[in-house]
């Protein structure tokens, strides 16, 4: 019954989306738009119906109703409750339902909250939003029905991929979806503003919180995914340039660029066409990401739900939306007037530099991700890996970091070199001294880790400079947000550079009682014991790591799951302030001489990578909340404009 009600709610919600779209079309015609008053109510009802459908599915997972195909395939009566609930979105159909639900609820939120832009633009935006939703409803209802029944119902259920049975991962996909959907709203705003000729500061201010929110979620989602891969896959790496990782990185890069350019548009009414372009690209990248993950056209460790039919569906949606948007862009952008002028050495100029570097990195990642596909089309089999991505992106990232040392200190419109010469000299001195000090301390370190560490030290100082000479209590929250996010970038880059420059590794086979050394740590394997969990058994190493007279216990596991049968490794991580000791134990040697394969890494400052990312997200959150709070207190006036 619940399943049928959920399905009915989805159909009704789809019809609401259709109403929104058709009513929006009447707006395009010269008349007043007869059906326009229907748009807002349709958006509310659509949000409510989708929410109902989503909770209906969650209920089915909660009670483990195995007569529903999706539940039977992805859940199990013995599964812990939290993973039963996470099963709602831990699969293709459920995750698409979550996608659409967030999309619809966001539509209702815009309809309810947005007061800054003209009514006509808002209606156009909601109509675009309805058009987007319509495609995803069609996708759900015609090719991915989450409420499909299974007759007869099985008695136990087919389990969930044990790799995915992890609290971190239960929340990783929804976090990314919030990000993707946020960008869809930026897309709708951009198309709405283009269609109604309202590309200006008001539109930018309306769009900005959604971009900022999406970007915060994407940042957290990517960081969480990276940490998950780091401790779960047992390879000791935190970024693999896997196609699916790139799929989440590309929207983030576009959103980061958009976030900066939208501020210019909101505060200075410049970069109009460029901001629109970025908004379209950012959502196109989200769609491309979804497509890459779902279609399985690129070989990836993530490829779940590989299905050519679904792949074609998402591809068709992506091409339809992106293609139409670019057609509208080409036809309408001529009507968007030139924005305010600015000089090269200005805050705008700095943000343009940021945008160019980020776009170059985005292009490099996009080309690298799609290259194997192009190569295959001409009959070659190629995989593009870290050597390409690192070589091609890191130099651009270095330029980006250099620009960031100065950019936030520049004034809007124009600045003069004389005012900033002491800071230029100071920043150069910090950079040079750091380089020399690192080189003296560790001459064998590579050029990029060296530059990375030096730049992050300089940026860690430079990030706080915008606060100099300000009354801290009267400084707007978005400025604090910016400072913290830039400082977070410094922290994160420091972690990346230190990890790639100074990691040490030992691979050995140990019998109980023997020990191995890595980076000053002595790790002794005391014993290996069998342990059991809810739905797995494992061998667990009992290790003691010692350094400078301090001893710590480590328990790495090699797990074996039953449903479906699968082997995973649970690394044991010992976190110190200056790095992590990472231990992995594997199944015994084939020879059967009682030795166990043990792999140990010392990864200096590796945790900084994710702490930095959290700081970046925190900075975004402060800016977002600061703006929302300000808006309720005072009428709209950009915080950055107040400078």
């Amino acid at each position, binding site marked *: 019954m619940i399943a049928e009600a959920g399905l009915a709610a989805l159909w009704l919600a789809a019809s609401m989306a259709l109403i929104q779209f058709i009513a929006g079309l009447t707006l395009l015609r010269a008349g007043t738009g007869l059906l326009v008053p229907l748009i807002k109510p349709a958006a509310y009802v659509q949000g409510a119906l989708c929410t109902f459908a989503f909770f209906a599915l969650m209920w089915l997972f909660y009670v483990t109703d195995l007569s529903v195909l999706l539940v039977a395939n992805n859940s199990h009566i013995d599964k812990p409750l939290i993973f039963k609930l996470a099963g709602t979105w831990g699969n293709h159909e459920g995750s698409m339902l979550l996608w659409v639900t967030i999309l619809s609820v966001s539509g209702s939120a815009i309809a309810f909250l947005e007061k800054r832009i003209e009514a006509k633009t808002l209606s156009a935006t909601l109509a675009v939003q309805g058009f987007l939703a319509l495609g995803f409803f069609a996708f759900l209802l015609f090719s991915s029905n989450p409420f499909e029944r299974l007759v007869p119902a099985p008695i136990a259920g087919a389990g969930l991929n044990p790799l995915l049975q992890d609290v971190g991962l239960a929340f990783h996909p929804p976090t990314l979806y919030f990000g993707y959907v946020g960008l869809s709203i930026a897309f709708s705003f951009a198309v709405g503003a283009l269609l109604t000729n309202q590309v200006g500061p008001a539109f930018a201010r309306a769009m900005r919180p959604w971009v900022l929110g999406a970007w915060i979620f994407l940042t957290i989602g990517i960081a969480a995914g990276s940490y998950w891969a780091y401790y779960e896959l047992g390879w000791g790496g935190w970024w693999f340039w896997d196609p699916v990782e790139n799929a989440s990185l590309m929207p983030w890069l576009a959103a980061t660029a958009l976030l900066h350019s939208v501020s210019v548009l909101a505060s200075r009414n410049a970069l109009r066409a460029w901001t629109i372009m970025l908004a379209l690209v950012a959502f196109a990248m989200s769609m491309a990401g979804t497509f890459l993950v779902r279609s399985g056209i690129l070989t990836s460790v993530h490829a779940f739900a590989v299905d050519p039919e679904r792949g*074609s569906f998402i591809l068709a949606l992506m091409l339809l939306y992106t293609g139409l948007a*670019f057609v509208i862009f080409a036809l309408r952008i001529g009507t968007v007037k030139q924005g305010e002028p600015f000089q090269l050495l200005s805050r705008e100029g700095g943000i343009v530099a940021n945008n160019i570097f980020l776009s170059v990195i985005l292009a490099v990642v996009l080309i690298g991700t799609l290259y194997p596909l192009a190569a295959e*089309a001409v009959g070659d089999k190629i995989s593009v890996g870290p050597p390409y991505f690192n070589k091609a992106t890191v130099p651009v990232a270095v330029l980006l970091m250099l620009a960031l040392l100065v950019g936030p200190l520049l004034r809007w419109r124009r600045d003069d070199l004389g005012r900033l010469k002491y800071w230029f000299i100071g920043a150069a001195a910090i950079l040079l001294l750091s380089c020399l000090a690192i080189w003296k301390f560790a001459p064998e370190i590579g050029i990029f880790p060296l530059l990375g560490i030096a730049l992050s030290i300089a940026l860690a100082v430079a990030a706080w400079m915008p606060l100099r000479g300000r009354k801290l209590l009267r400084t707007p929250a978005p400025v604090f947000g910016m400072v913290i996010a830039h400082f977070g970038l410094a922290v994160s880059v420091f972690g990346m550079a230190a990890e790639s420059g100074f990691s040490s590794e030992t691979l050995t086979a140990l019998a109980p009682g023997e020990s191995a050394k890595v980076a000053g740590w002595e790790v002794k394997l005391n014993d290996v014991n069998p342990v059991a969990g809810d739905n797995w058994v494992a061998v667990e190493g009992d290790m003691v790591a010692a350094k400078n007279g301090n001893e710590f216990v480590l328990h790495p596991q090699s797990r074996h799951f039953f449903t479906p049968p699968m082997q995973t490794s649970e690394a044991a991580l010992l976190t110190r302030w200056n790095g992590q000791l990472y231990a992995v134990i594997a199944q015994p040697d084939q020879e059967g001489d009682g030795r166990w394969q043990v792999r140990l890494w010392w990864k200096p400052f590796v945790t900084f990578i994710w702490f930095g990312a959290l700081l970046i997200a925190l900075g975004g959150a402060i800016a977002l909340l600061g703006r929302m709070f300000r808006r309720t207190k005072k009428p709209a006036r950009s915080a950055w404009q107040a400078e």
Partner: protein
Amino acid sequence: MNRSWLLWAPLAVTACIGGLATYGLVVPKDEQVRSAMIGQKLPEFALPPATQGVLPLSNTDMGDGKPRLLNIFASWCIPCKAEAPQLEALEAAGVEIDGIAIRDRPEDVAAFLDEFGNPYRRIGGDSEMAVQLKLGSSGVPETYVIAADGTILFQHIGDIRTEHVPMLIEKLKATK
């Protein structure tokens, strides 16, 4: 200056990516990794007998003027058990088959031959996969068509099913 064509560039890029992606979806994917050794002479190797009572195998045992099949298998490999009747059928058709047992123990190979029959002329034991890697093989079972002069002509990846038997016989005949 007329730059209006530039405005259509994003659409063109989208179309290119779309075309590429469509191609990726439509064209069936060849997930198999073909050996780079096809068309080349057998690499040098000399393997001990895989178990008691069988003959050892080296590259000079093949390419002696008679085309043969080289079958890579293992007692622990389930598709290898499934293809055993097809190997018997090939042998019955007069095809000479040499085998290489990968990462195997002599007693397990003996048990495997007892249970599923022994269509092999010679069986080398490759306990470290060294020869398998030299052949450019990435799994078991795999079957190579070796020409009379020792050139590797063809690689069949996966188990030999009934429908593959005539094809392999054709390939062998074609070498003469």
